[in-house]
């Protein structure tokens, strides 16, 4: 009888210690996408329509984007970027002020091309807000050139017309 009681107590103690243990693992992954920042390098800085002699027969002057302003955009290969720009107006206000002449404005209608080479081979025309992929094959580099049209009225005041054009590139 005593032996059975001792055995029971012994088993209770063992079972008590067995039931006290429980252990579970869970794992969670960590994700970080390390991204190269965007940079823009101006390779060709001006878009010059040259000297235009007013002629009623000529109202629209165009400059090919390949001959215009050229930017190199560098970013994370494989990432998409959005290219934004806006139409701008050229003004002769400074020139008119200096020479006491009539002030005038000319609308500049931009034309934007993109390519994977500085020579703008196989160019692709884009519109404002276009989403473009930075090619892995080109190490995330993209070349953006800016040309455009200006419309000259027959009564356009003479002078040097200047304006600033803004291009924004974002991830």
């Amino acid at each position: 009888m005593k032996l059975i009681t001792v055995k029971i107590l012994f088993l209770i103690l063992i079972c008590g210690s067995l039931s006290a243990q429980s252990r579970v693992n869970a794992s969670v992954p960590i994700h970080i996408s390390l991204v190269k920042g965007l940079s823009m390098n101006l390779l060709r800085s001006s878009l010059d329509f040259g000297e235009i002699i007013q002629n009623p027969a000529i109202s629209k002057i165009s400059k090919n984007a390949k001959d215009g302003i050229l930017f190199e955009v560098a970013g994370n290969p494989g990432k998409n970027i959005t290219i934004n720009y806006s139409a701008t107006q050229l003004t002769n206000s400074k020139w008119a002020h200096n020479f006491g002449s009539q002030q005038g404005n000319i609308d500049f209608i931009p034309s934007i091309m993109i390519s994977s080479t500085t020579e703008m081979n196989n160019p692709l025309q884009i519109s404002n807000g276009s989403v473009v992929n930075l090619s892995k094959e080109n190490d995330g580099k993209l070349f953006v050139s800016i040309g455009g049209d200006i419309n000259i009225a027959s009564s356009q005041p003479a002078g040097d017309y200047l304006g600033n054009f803004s291009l924004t590139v974002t991830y």
Partner: protein
Amino acid sequence: MNKLFFCILFSILILLLSDSLSAQNIYITKLNDLNFGDVFIGYSKDIPHTDINASKFRFYHTATSRKIIYLSFILPSRLSNGLDQIPITFDQNHTAWSYKDKTSGRTNFNPYSKFSIKNVRSNRMVYIWLGANLPAMAGVSYGLYEGTIILTVEY
């Protein structure tokens, strides 16, 4: 008489072993990965435990009595993209637990040492959050860096 004793003994054994015989009596659910998202090379990024991108676990136990629950983590010190490695740091300020799934009222604890939560009753949910800090690193390659956190819950 002996038969009676053995019947009693068998019943006690069944009762006491019920916890250990069941396949599992702590249940963990991973609710969220630790996701830093996009980080620019050369910039640091901090994910506090209150951030929606912090890792999040939930667990409960089904033992019959209240338990002291022990928590421990295996944490990576570096993450890899297969080419380069970047350091990652965890600390008490980025780690917390609570009985409630809320940003307020959490208790911080050190993820590098074993931590205990006392008197956790059966089926009571416990939430764990773990954020981290990524120091600024220059000269590393871009890409997806990954690592794994392992949480152990035991009593």
